[in-house]
């Protein structure tokens, strides 16, 4: 799977309140949440993000609450994947569980600049900066999480298990 798009850069410790403020959590409708994606970090973001674009951020992306509304909002906004130096742990789990591809790569987080054209080869864990002609490696994803992705998210994975009686 290749994800390709323009990079939007964010700093370190982007928290879940910045990704989707609690004032919008009285709904879990993805389309509604997408309208406010990253609003408190950059109010213009929902208007300017294009399908396929990639969020590139510093350390500890998604820290704070356990709200799955955060990766849901990012995914519904059309963002194809998120690259960060590191992810907060609940966000990391949630992203896999709902099927938002995320890649941990300190090199990419350093090297990529706002507006760069980026292509991510998920299978090989390689991130290409097409604008600058650079290549970075992403931290490999544990085998078990790859199975979750392959199944199309945790719920499909569990539903299959339930069906097969295991």
């Amino acid at each position, binding site marked *: 799977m290749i994800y390709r798009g323009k990079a939007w850069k964010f700093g370190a410790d982007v*928290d879940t309140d910045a990704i989707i403020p609690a004032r919008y959590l009285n709904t879990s409708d993805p389309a509604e949440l997408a309208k406010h994606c990253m609003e408190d970090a950059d109010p213009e973001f929902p208007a300017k993000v294009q399908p396929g674009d990639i969020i590139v951020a510093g350390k500890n992306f998604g820290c704070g*609450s356990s709200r799955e509304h955060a990766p849901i909002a990012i995914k519904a906004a059309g963002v194809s994947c998120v690259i960060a130096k590191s992810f907060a742990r609940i966000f990391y789990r949630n992203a896999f569980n709902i099927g938002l591809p995320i890649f941990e790569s300190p090199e990419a987080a350093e090297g990529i600049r706002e507006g760069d054209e980026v292509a991510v080869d998920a299978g090989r864990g390689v991130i290409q900066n097409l604008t600058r002609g650079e290549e970075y490696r992403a931290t490999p994803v544990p085998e078990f999480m790859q199975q979750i992705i392959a199944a199309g998210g945790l719920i499909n994975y569990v539903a299959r298990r339930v069906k097969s009686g295991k």
Partner: protein
Amino acid sequence: MGMTITEKILAAHAGADRVEPGQLVNVKVDLALGNDITAPVAIREFEKIGVETVWDRDRVVLVPDHFVPNKDIKSAEQALQLKQFARKHNLTYYYEVGRMGIEHCLLPEQGLVGPGDLVIGADSHTCTYGGLGAFSTGVGSTDLAAAMALGETWLKVPESIKFVYRGELPRWVGGKDLILYTIGQIGVDGALYMAMEFTGPVIERLSMDGRLTMANMAVEAGAKNGIVPPDEVTRRYVEGRAKRPYQFYQSDPDAHYARVYDFDVSKLEPQVAFPHLPENARPVSEAGEVTIDQVVIGSCTNGRLEDLRQAASVLRGHKVNDNVRLIVIPGTQQVYMDALREGLVEVFIEAGAAVSTPTCGPCLGGYMGILAKGERCLATTNRNFVGRMGHPESEVYLAGPAVAAASAVLGRIAGPWEVVK
């Protein structure tokens, strides 16, 4: 080599003799928790799995607490989904308004979690129950849905960091100050993916309320869980309260830790975390002149009886500053009732505070105390991110109940000794 308390609890729930940090394990959960924000998503996902009913109606707990009593129509619809699901699956522990509390105050108080338990909750502050010597961690709604169906979840065994606190805690310094200081030392990702084990003579003398406060904020350092070794204080708390059998686990003397921190806290001052990260902690005497518009005393961090007692001990005989709104939110109905019987509620109202029914409310910027542009709040809550309590250009400062009460009286961030002479 020995194991840490966290490793032992995970091993026991994985049906293994031992586990190693980094290992992925499938574990049985003792309790699974959701609230009015996260459970609606979990219920939607649960219904896709294809099971008839939840794995155990005594072990799926739903607590509407974030936007209840319902703040608007959409919130009401979310809360209604919890109620309908609870009725359909005949859940034993669903807490309606009037009988509820903030989930992480309520579950320990009601004896729903005990030492040695493995608890997951679709709320990041589920790590609170580590104060009881349980392994508990926050997950998302989809993880909750899977656990509601299977009674299991997968976890990566975390490495542990040990924190040793020595010395004598000075007056006015409590669990909140210890944890703010600790996060100030290690940063908001200082314990990313890890377990924080809180130990030492100071912790042994700390009350259960103080321990729950510390474990509550482990997630603010990025940790998977925070945990306090269970002891006599734990035994006294859970005896006669726990609804299920419990077990005390202790770390082995030769357990492995990724890091060990040794803090002498004899000279620690009450701490204040400045905007916009909990790691921006500094002693209250170094706060400078920071005027405030609102003070909130409550939340799953500091909404317990001891917190209200401490706040009342500062407020007694004083008035809230003319420029300040003081909002006091007891964590549960029981805390409210106890505070009423002890005369604390009277102290608050006489001082000029608004006392609310239990709710998360302003803590997450939900309702009941939202900040306007440019307003500043000092709160006993746990997060001071941009826009956490209202307008993106408002500010939240975090502190314990004594500093909060003193600041409400003086209209600026202040130490309790400035009010209680």
